[in-house]
Structure formats: structure tokens, C-alpha cells
């Protein structure tokens, strides 16, 4: 976001696109990241009581995505970026599960 191209065009607020992408896709992405941690993190999927930590992981990841999404130059970029990140994360999750 700090590269030269973005310096010329100021950030567009695009409140609705960014907020809804951040809320919905940010949550699904956080869920996938928590899931990846559950499967590949220490102890693996079956570690006792780990699920609590995995659940707690969702909120900070989700909230960081949501609160930093407004740094993205415009709404469409935020949306596509999150879509790609989601696709990657779920593909990885699918891989580690099988």
C-alpha cells in the first residue's frame, strides 16, 4: 500500500464494499486460518482442549482484517484481494485435511 502507484491516487473510502467484504470474507478467511492452525499447528487436530484456542484465534484475525481493510486503495481491490486469499486458504485447508 505504500508503493509509488498508490501515492498518486488517494484512497477511496468505499464504505459499503470494504465493510461488507471485511465482515463476511474477513470472517471466512479468519475461520480458514484458524482451521489451518488447528490441523497443522502444534499438537495437530486431536490435541485436547486445543479447540478453545482455535476458536479464540478467529476474532483477532477477523478484527485485524476488518480494521486494516480500509487501507486498501478501493473497494473492488479489497473484495478481490479477500476472495483470492479465501480461495488460497480454503485450498490449503482442504489439502491438509485430506
Amino acid at each position, binding site marked *: 500500500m505504500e508503493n509509488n502507484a498508490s*501515492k498518486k491516487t*488517494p*484512497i477511496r*473510502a468505499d464504505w459499503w464494499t470494504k465493510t461488507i467484504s471485511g465482515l463476511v470474507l474477513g470472517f471466512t478467511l479468519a*475461520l*480458514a486460518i*484458524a*482451521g489451518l492452525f*488447528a*490441523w497443522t499447528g502444534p*499438537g495437530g*487436530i*486431536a*490435541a*485436547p*482442549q*486445543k*479447540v*478453545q*484456542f*482455535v*476458536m*479464540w484465534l*478467529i*476474532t*483477532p484475525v477477523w*478484527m*485485524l482484517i*476488518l*480494521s*486494516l481493510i*480500509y*487501507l486498501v486503495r478501493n473497494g473492488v481491490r479489497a473484495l478481490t484481494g479477500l476472495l483470492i486469499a479465501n480461495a488460497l486458504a480454503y485450498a490449503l*485447508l482442504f489439502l491438509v*485435511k485430506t
Partner: protein
Amino acid sequence: MKIRSDILRVYQSLHTWVGISAGLLLFIGFFAGALTMFKQPLDHWVSPPTPSPTMASAQHIDSLALQALAQHPAARKGFTMHLGNHDNNAAIMSWTAGRPGRELDFSAKQWTATLDETGILQAKEELPSILAQMIDMLHRTGGIPGEIGDEYLGGYLMGVAGILYFLALISGVILLLPTMVKDFFALRPGKNRKRFWLDAHNIIGITSLPYHIVISVTVIVFAFHDQFYDSLAEVVYKNQPMFGAPPAAAVKPYEARDMLPLTSILNKVKAEAGDSTISEIQFFGLESLRPRARVALVNPRYLVQGPEAGYLTLHPYTGAVINASMLPGKESTWSAIVGPFFSLHFGSYGGDMMRWVYFAFGLSGAFLFYSGNLLWLEKRRKVQRPNQALPVQTLSTRLMAAGTVGVCLGTVAGVCFTLVAGKLFAATAKNINFVYLFVYYSVFLGALAWAYLRGAARSSVDLLWLCVIAALSIPCSSAFMALQTTSNTNITGLGVELVAIAMALAFIYAARKTDKRIKDEAKDSVWSLQTSA
């Protein structure tokens, strides 16, 4: 640190709008939350614990449980044995006839049983005052009624407020970064009152930032953990067991009379729990296939999972440990990582000192939202230009100003009067819990209505004086009740009265200042008498 101006603009709007949408609900949450740090002293202040007969030998709880289980079939479903009683050493056993649930039941009767001097069971059914739980409910839901599914609507709204609150924190920090070094700890009183409020807002926000981040994240988790677990089960775990295998079920239901004597359960717990103190044991499904005894253990040296205690679950018939993962100081790795998230929200570590720190943090949080709203109003002020007519302040500022005054002061006055009602009527009312509800909502809604009817400026003075009266009526009602009862009841200290008097003095100061302000204030302020119609 330099940040581009377009980023600052976006985050400025974000900060403003999330703050203004969530501020009032969060004010209620923080004020009531600060009080929940002292819910036991408040409960004792309202209805002083009746000194029970003292039959305090080590074995008396065995006899108490045996007699109660034999005589009261309802207790065989499950009961609680309270041990950590401050005023006497005798254990108290309690159970409810109905189904115990997560929700508040305002008219649930409760049985309590003790042993008298001769070792005979004394059981009585009464309607307990649930003031502490109701303050807790105000804290968790903001007092918003209604339910969705099994959960309170207010709880979900508080969760949404938690999300907005997190956004407000991050955006606030981003806004402050460029001028951090210059502005940090600069409190500039003087001519520019907006600058003063902004400095105060920033100092409180930055110095307690870690606390606020913890609170906002935990609020979101507490509100939505069911949905989070369901999503994880659906997407991540699928066929994997999430919570491990449940304890094996017995072949046939147990019978309460075969239960281990409580003393041997206690010995078992002491062997496991080290230097933690046992505060209570709760028995679930005593005559079912999977009976459990959940022991609450208090140890201020550790960060624990419950609001006050960590837990150890035992089998009440065999004494086998079912779950030791929440035992203070001996948690399993993952529980030990998760535990602090809970105790950092509840302030359940470090004992009474930390309680006061959390009380102060809670009030400072309430101040953060209140001052944030004031800044919003000041920013939207339409300034009167020289030689021009007085501008009309926008409807939204007038409504927001009245709402801020009404909600904030209404909550404070409502809670104070509810405490007083409890003090005066707890012993005589048919159902004190409905009295609490009635008093709180009439004061709160009355204050809100008054604020909108009279406008922000006039009503702020009126409502501040109402808060003075409300706070002063706390020590007055104590004195009144002390004169009424000739018996020398155990005085549990004057903490509640002293805090109330301090609050009253603060409100007197604020009321006098505000009264002066609304008369002197420039006519274009929303706080001026001239504009608040």
C-alpha cells in the same frame, strides 16, 4: 511517524462513526461492568447475610448433605455446597426445585439448608435477591430486553458493539500515530475546551489500550462463541471430535445415597488442587448416568477461566478426576493459554487490588465513550459568525446530545436507586427482583425521556442533580435501615457508602459546573440554554 492524509481522513470518519454508534451501549456495559467487580459486597450491602447457626466441625457437611438428600428429593437432581463463606464457617447447601438454566429467572425459588447447633437440618425455601446477577446482566446486555434463540438480543448487540469498539481502537491509534510524541501526556486546559477533552480522551485511550483491546476481543468472543464453534465444526473439524470424548456413561443411573461423603471428595480435591481454596462444589445430574461434581477453586495467584474461580470436575461416586484442565496453576497447555483471556476480562486475578484497578479501568472506559460523544458534538457545532444570526444546531447533534446525557446519567441514577430499593425493600417485598426491574427501567427511561423533552443543556443539570440524590440516598438508606433494626447486624464495612459519597461529591461538582456553563456558554453551543429548546 508520518501517515498519508487520505488514510487519516478515512480512519477519522471510521473512528467517528463506529464510536458514535457503539458509544452509549458500551458506556452502560463499562459502568455496570465496573460495578460487577464488587457484586458480592453490593449483594451483602443490600441484604446482609443472615448469620446462620454454627455447627462447624469437619464432618458437619457430610451430615448436612446426607440429611438434605434424604429429606428433599429435589436436591438429588443437583445441588451446590457453598464453603468459602466469609462470615461463618458453616457450609450452606442450596438447590432449586425447577430446572436450572442459563437465563435469569426473576421468580425462581431456592432452597437453602444448614445444620443448627444440634446437628439437625434446617431447610427453607425462599426467593433470593438476584441483584448481583441483574447488574451482571445489565453489563452483558446493556439492559436491552428480548431473546434470539437461547441467547439475549442485548448480548448479540453488545457483541456488535464490541466489533465497532475494536475498529474504534485501531482507527484511534492510527489517528494518534502522527502526533503521538507531541500529544502524548499533553493535557492542555485553557481556552480551547475541545482540545482539553481531546487530550483527555487520548491519554485515557492510549494508556489503557491493551486493556481495551482485550475487552473488545473477549466481548466479541463471549457474544458469538456458539456461532464460532458451529462454524469450526462445519468447516474445520467435521468428523473430528472437538471437545474430546465425553466421560463414559454408567450402565444404570446412580442413586444419591451411594455418593461419596463430601469430606472424602474434599480431601481428594485438596490433594489435586494444592494451595487453592475451595469455594463451592456444584453437583450435576446426581442420579443420572453421567454425574459430575464441579469444584470451584479460588487462587488469586493464577489466571483462571471463571469470573472468580478455576474448576476441577470429579466423579461424585468414584472420586475419579473427570476434567482437571481448568485447575488453577495446573491447566493443560492449551487451557493455560486460553485461561488468561477470560481472567483478563473478568479481572479475576491479583485479588482485591486488581478489583479496584479493574473498577477504575471500567470507569475510565465509560469516560472514553462519554468524552468521545462530547467531541463528536463539539465538532459538529455550527459556529456563530460575527454579526450574523444564531445558527440552528442540526437535529442530529441535539438528539445525540440529549441521548448522551439521558443514557449515561440515566444508567448511573437507575443503578443507584435500584440499590437503594433493594436495601429498603429486600426483606419485605413479595418479589424484590421485580422491584429492581421496575425501579431501574423507570429511572432510566424517565431520565432519557426527560433529556429529550428538556433538551441536552437543561436536562444535563437536572439529571446531574438526580444522580447526586441517587448517590446520596445510598448512605441514607443504610442509616435508615441501621436505625430500623435494633439488632446489631454484622457491619461489612462502609465501602459502598464511601464510594457513593465520593460519587455524590463528584456529581455535585459536575452539576454546579454545568449549571454555570449552560448560562455562560456561547449561544452557538449545543450546551447553551438558548439553543436547547
